């Protein structure tokens, strides 16, 4: 397990939900997918979700699945309505300029896998 804040630093991520403290969120891995049902079927509660999808349903999926943070790849940034909904559900939203492969690889390394 590492802190989400360590991962954000490593991927030069931007926190779109600053009211949530990434120092308080522990993560054990990631699930990478843009298919929402795939995420609901297979992602685990302590994993971050790496995706390029950024509409409102993404927050619902993360909430139902118990995902603590979403990492948006390739600089995709969520709009204000999505950020508000995420705050309501206590889901941390991070965007990074890195591509999915590098985002997953960086976390893999950080976790010492």
């Amino acid at each position: 397990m590492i802190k989400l804040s360590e991962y954000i630093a490593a991927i030069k991520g931007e926190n779109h939900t600053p009211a949530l403290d990434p120092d308080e969120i522990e993560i054990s891995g990631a699930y990478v997918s843009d298919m929402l049902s795939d995420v609901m079927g297979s992602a685990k509660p302590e994993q971050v979700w790496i995706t390029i999808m950024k509409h409102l349903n993404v927050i619902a999926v993360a909430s139902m699945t118990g995902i603590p943070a979403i990492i948006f790849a390739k600089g995709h940034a969520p709009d204000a309505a999505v950020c508000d909904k995420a705050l309501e559900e206590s889901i941390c939203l991070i965007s990074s300029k890195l591509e999915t492969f590098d985002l997953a690889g960086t976390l893999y390394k950080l976790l010492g896998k």
Partner: protein
Amino acid sequence: MRVSAVVRFREMPEYCYVAEGFEDAVRQFEEHAPLAEVKTEFAIPEKDFNTAGKGSSELKNLLKRLGVDSVVLRRIAVASYEAEINVAAHSKGGIMYGTVYDDLIHVRFEDEGPGIANIEQAMTPGFSTADDLVRELGFGAGLGLPNIKKNSDAMRLVSVAGGRTKLEFLIYFAGRFE
């Protein structure tokens, strides 16, 4: 989890599933339904993917307050959210009914049609009839119904082509924690 009971009726297109070890509990529930503790009802309008999910979200919050285990809560939330999305994506709209009992929840979805042409096909992982709008949102992977089944202790899907669809599932609070 293995399928322990798959019943197919010749005349009524129906898919029934009871998870292993839950046969007696489900039979008992169907024969003598206990008194409901709480009942909820939510409308799911056609193709409205922002309203779809509200019912599941409120149900999840309610059960959390009632102290339902987080793993069981997750199973209930995922199953009911998938079903809500199905109603919004594939039907002319419908209603989600959640009934909370002392030791389980019964969630039922009834829509306005147009029904499922082939239930067996619909239950096959990867099979989907979702349109472009639904796929653009990242749904339509053909995993909705299989996810509902995977997370339920019992599930029943009844539908006729040209008619309405009814989907219901039971999840026990002291059930599987995987």
